[in-house]
């Protein structure tokens, strides 16, 4: 009897805490399937999708000198495909990732699948910069890095004050290109990413012509505002696809979405882009 008396208030507390309202995530109204509707170019769906398209572009371009950032979304539409997902159609301008100079506009489609898998992207961009020039810059960067006899290492790039040592700029730019793969894969309609910092980088010397780096990268996740730490292995040879292997820390900070608490996702999921790494 005594035990029950002690247990009751605890039970009540447990019950009460289970009843606490969970913060909501803003719901999207249901739209007629198959109908393409216009999106405000400033809307987070449009801007988010454009960023995802650019992550895909930056990864596939595999060019540290040719990285692009989002300028402005000019036009956006979205279509709900029943049983498949949401598809965005976008037209946007881009800037050089570093210099903010106009880099030309792009047309893209981004399909966010209903089931949990990376968004499917199709993107075509106009080049305002001469592609040969970009290739030459990439080759210059490559040669500079190849000339190093000792393994390149670094940490906190950029540093607290936003500075990037000139000698490490190419290494940072490669990190952006490689991170684009991670960010593309992890993005959803609701969650987006920015590469914030290279926490550390270490070069693995190779006998062949490729350059190989081991990174710890911090990704800024929105809207959770979390800094996600990812371990990334990258292999680069100019003119070839970028090879990226990565694993990000388990995300145990979930936005309450009213549909029930999600426990932290499994840690250490390794995603490979290329076999025979």
């Amino acid at each position, binding site marked *: 009897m005594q035990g029950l008396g002690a247990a009751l208030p605890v039970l009540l507390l447990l019950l009460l805490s289970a009843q606490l309202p969970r913060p909501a995530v803003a719901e999207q109204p249901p739209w007629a399937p198959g109908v393409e509707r216009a999106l405000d170019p400033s809307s987070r769906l449009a801007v988010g999708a454009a960023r995802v398209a650019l992550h895909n572009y930056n990864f596939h371009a595999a060019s540290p000198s040719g990285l692009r950032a989002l300028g402005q979304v000019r036009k956006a539409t979205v279509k709900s495909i029943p049983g498949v997902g949401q598809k965005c159609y976008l037209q946007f301008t881009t800037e050089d990732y570093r210099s903010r100079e106009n880099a030309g506009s792009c047309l893209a489609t981004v399909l966010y699948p209903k089931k949990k898998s990376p968004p499917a992207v199709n993107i075509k961009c106009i080049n305002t910069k001469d592609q040969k020039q970009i290739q030459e810059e990439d080759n210059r960067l490559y040669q500079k890095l190849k000339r190093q006899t000792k393994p390149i290492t670094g940490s906190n790039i950029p540093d607290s004050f936003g500075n990037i040592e000139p000698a490490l700029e190419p290494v940072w730019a490669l990190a952006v290109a490689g991170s684009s793969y991670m960010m593309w894969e992890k993005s959803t309609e609701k969650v987006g990413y*920015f590469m914030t910092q290279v926490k550390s980088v270490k070069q693995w010397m190779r006998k062949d012509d490729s350059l190989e780096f081991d990174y710890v990268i911090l990704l800024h996740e929105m809207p959770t505002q979390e800094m996600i730490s990812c371990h990334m292995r990258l292999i680069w040879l100019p003119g070839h696809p970028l090879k990226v292997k990565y694993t990000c820390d388990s995300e145990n900070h979930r936005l309450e979405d009213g549909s029930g608490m999600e426990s932290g996702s499994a840690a250490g999921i390794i995603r490979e882009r290329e076999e025979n790494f």
Partner: protein
Amino acid sequence: LVDESMPKQRSHRQIPEGYNYTEYHPMEEIYKWMTQIQESNSELVTQHHLGKTIENRTIYYLQISQPSNKPKKIIWMDCGIHAREWISPAFCQWFVKEILQNYKSDAMIRRFLQNLDLYILPVLNVDGYIYSWEAERLWRKNRSPYMNGTCYGTDLNRNFNSSWGSVGVSYNCTSEIFCGSGPESEPETRAVAQFIEKKKTDILCYLTIHSYGQYILTPYGSTTTPPSNNEELMHVAQKAAAALMGKHGTSYKVGSTSSILYSNSGSSRDWAHMIGIPFSYTFELRDNGTHGFTLPSDQIQPTCEETMLAVTTIIDYVDQKYFPGGAVMLTSGSLSLSLL
């Protein structure tokens, strides 16, 4: 696209000698700067105690007030609510410097200072800011201990009493968007809220400065229902963004937080508008993600220059709206004299 021009040097007397506004400063230097600014501009500037942080540090604001027997209305601007957004306190300091350097020569500043007092809070989240310098550069929240000191920090911009805890937050202290144990649970939030509540009938404009993303954000974050004065808010924000773009070509997006950024409850800007402050805006300064929170110091000047134009556009609009008809308000006495 970088503007190489130096800020106009007016009276060196007014500005603390050698204070470099194009560098990031730790809190100790900002405290010293506030004292010096008041000392060298005592006819215009007074430093005030707003409250204390959870670690018992003082939160100060600066009041820029042209001496006058006229009752004034108030423009409030706070910076540094999120620790890692260093460009934000840098802008508040720049703004104060610009006003003090140009209030005698710049006609627009002269005009609005006759009607408006400027209340500037350079660093709201003092503990967090210090922590981002000394321990963790990417810290966001305050330094409030929870769970027996095993977890730290409330997101102050989720802690205000504006639909608190309803959307875009976490109830878990380990989250970057932890909204605290209740609305205004944090001393920093209470310090700001109590002050603004007291003065709300005189405050025409509430500005809160963040980074990054390049946005001018209108209410609300906690709901998609537009505010009663949405059209006017948007119109003025567009004007401000256009003025900003004119300086260095930087493009800002304008819209409500819930439509162009994300949904969130408990923001200071939502709360300010909900208690009746008509012109309430959140600024998210440079950049668009390339450097994010670690904006290089060579971008401090161009960022502050362009943002200055946006902010003064808003203040000017507010001034013209509430104090129309020329800089000098005629009293009945002088009016009858001029009719003779």
